[in-house]
């Protein structure tokens, strides 16, 4: 009855888990940035990038299967890049007659498509490792470290706190609707009501969620005020980074720069 399965954080004792969240966030973004900068068709670079993310997955003790399974979710968008197989000019590899037209699969097109697909797949794996190896409170610390304004970070925090409560409420609302979605034994009746009616009911459920959310936020505000809240966001200073973590950061960034240079040299 709970939506706790929404939280992707899996607790493990791996070196990745122990790494300071600020370092992890910066390295993850740097990795994705590096991946994005590698030119299309730089296969050696892609192999190395994939090995790196695979190595991180292993080190994180999350299970490569777990990460790859979640990575599949990003796949559907790849359909958006399919046309590039046929529209980018160049020597044709395969010709597919479709009705009146002939689709020509070109080599540059294939190269571009595969590059996009691979880069996207590699990037999302790193993002998954980041999310699954870092608890949300730690991610908030990382956000503060990269200078995201405290007001925004507070909103992130509150959203996360009430996300599961509201997700539970949504689940129960949908269950209540399902429980009353029956079929009469009288013959010849169309079940389900009209599309408009179903949309209105669903909208009503959304409205109910928002309304209860707004009223709940009043109660949260009262609880905050009772503990001295005055509108100003105050938080403890962030702990200093340990030398080991600095080392990891510098090495990580160094490796990425090296990889990028390699990608352009070959």
């Amino acid at each position, binding site marked *: 009855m709970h939506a706790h399965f929404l939280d992707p954080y899996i607790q493990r004792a791996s070196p990745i888990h122990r790494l300071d969240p600020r370092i992890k966030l910066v390295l993850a973004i740097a990795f994705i940035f590096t991946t994005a900068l590698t030119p299309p068709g730089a296969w050696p670079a892609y192999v190395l990038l994939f090995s790196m993310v695979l190595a991180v997955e292993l080190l994180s003790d999350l299970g490569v299967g777990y990460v790859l399974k979640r990575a599949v979710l990003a796949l559907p968008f790849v359909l958006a890049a399919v046309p590039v197989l046929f529209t980018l000019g160049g020597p044709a590899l395969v010709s597919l007659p479709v009705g009146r037209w002939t689709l020509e699969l070109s080599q540059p097109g294939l190269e571009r498509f595969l590059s996009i697909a691979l880069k996207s797949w590699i990037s999302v794996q790193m993002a998954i490792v980041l999310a699954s190896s870092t608890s949300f409170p730690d991610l908030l610390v990382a956000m503060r470290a990269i200078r995201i304004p405290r007001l925004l970070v507070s909103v992130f925090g509150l959203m996360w706190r009430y996300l599961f409560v509201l997700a539970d*409420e949504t689940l129960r609302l949908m269950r209540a609707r*399902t429980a*009353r979605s029956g079929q009469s034994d009288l013959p010849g009746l169309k*079940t389900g*009501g009209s599309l408009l009616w179903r949309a209105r*009911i669903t909208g009503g*459920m959304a*409205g109910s969620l928002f309304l209860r959310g707004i009223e709940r936020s009043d109660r949260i505000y009262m609880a905050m005020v009772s503990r001295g809240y005055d509108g100003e966001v105050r938080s403890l200073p962030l702990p200093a980074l340990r030398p080991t973590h600095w080392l990891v950061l510098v090495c990580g960034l160094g490796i990425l720069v090296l990889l990028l240079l390699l990608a352009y040299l070959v």
Partner: protein
Amino acid sequence: MHHSIVVEDLSFSYSDGHTALRDVSLSIQPCEKVALVGPNGAGKSTLILHLNGILKGQGRVHVCGLDVTDKNLARVRAMVGLVFQAPDDQLFSPTVYDDVAFGPLYQGLPQSEVEQRVQEALAAVHMSDYARRVSHHLSVGEKKRIAIATVLSMKPEVLVLDEPTAGLDPRARRSLIHLLAELPLTMLVSTHDMLMARELFPRLVIMDEGKVVADGPTQALMDDIELLEAHGLERP
């Protein structure tokens, strides 16, 4: 007209691995009124969610003459009226009328029939004047009664309620108990309210840790203090 519930060897585990039901078997005859009691986490709510197919476990669930399978879900839901614990999540329409009308409307019944059913359902819960009221603004007791009405309008054969008296003040509780006493349906009620169980329900089923640990006449079971205490219950 079957009006019955039969559960055979039902087992269920949640996706996080927690086993909520272990080989639960239960048989409720037409027009029987049964109270389901047990500590929190015993599996009472989980069992209830199997009765109209919201959850699917291993084993057989048979309600009102139909197997609860994907094929029959729509029919099952028309015949089993499930009233949830938190009325807020059950009342999702702006007005009382809309909520009570949802069931019959979904079934595609003609407008006149829907009207009539809403009137009857509201009358059965003694809230006929509330049709135009906004559900959101009602008290907990009123919401609980409206929630029952939303299910009665479907004219179910079996009524299943999850903690109907939880959170009610003595007056609202008394009025709800009167209401349940009046309804002539087959009834299964999950509750912590042992006084109500003794007052209204001749048969008691005790659950603990996902299993049925006792099933028999309420009076007899409630005299067995050891049994009650062993499963986190108190004699009323």
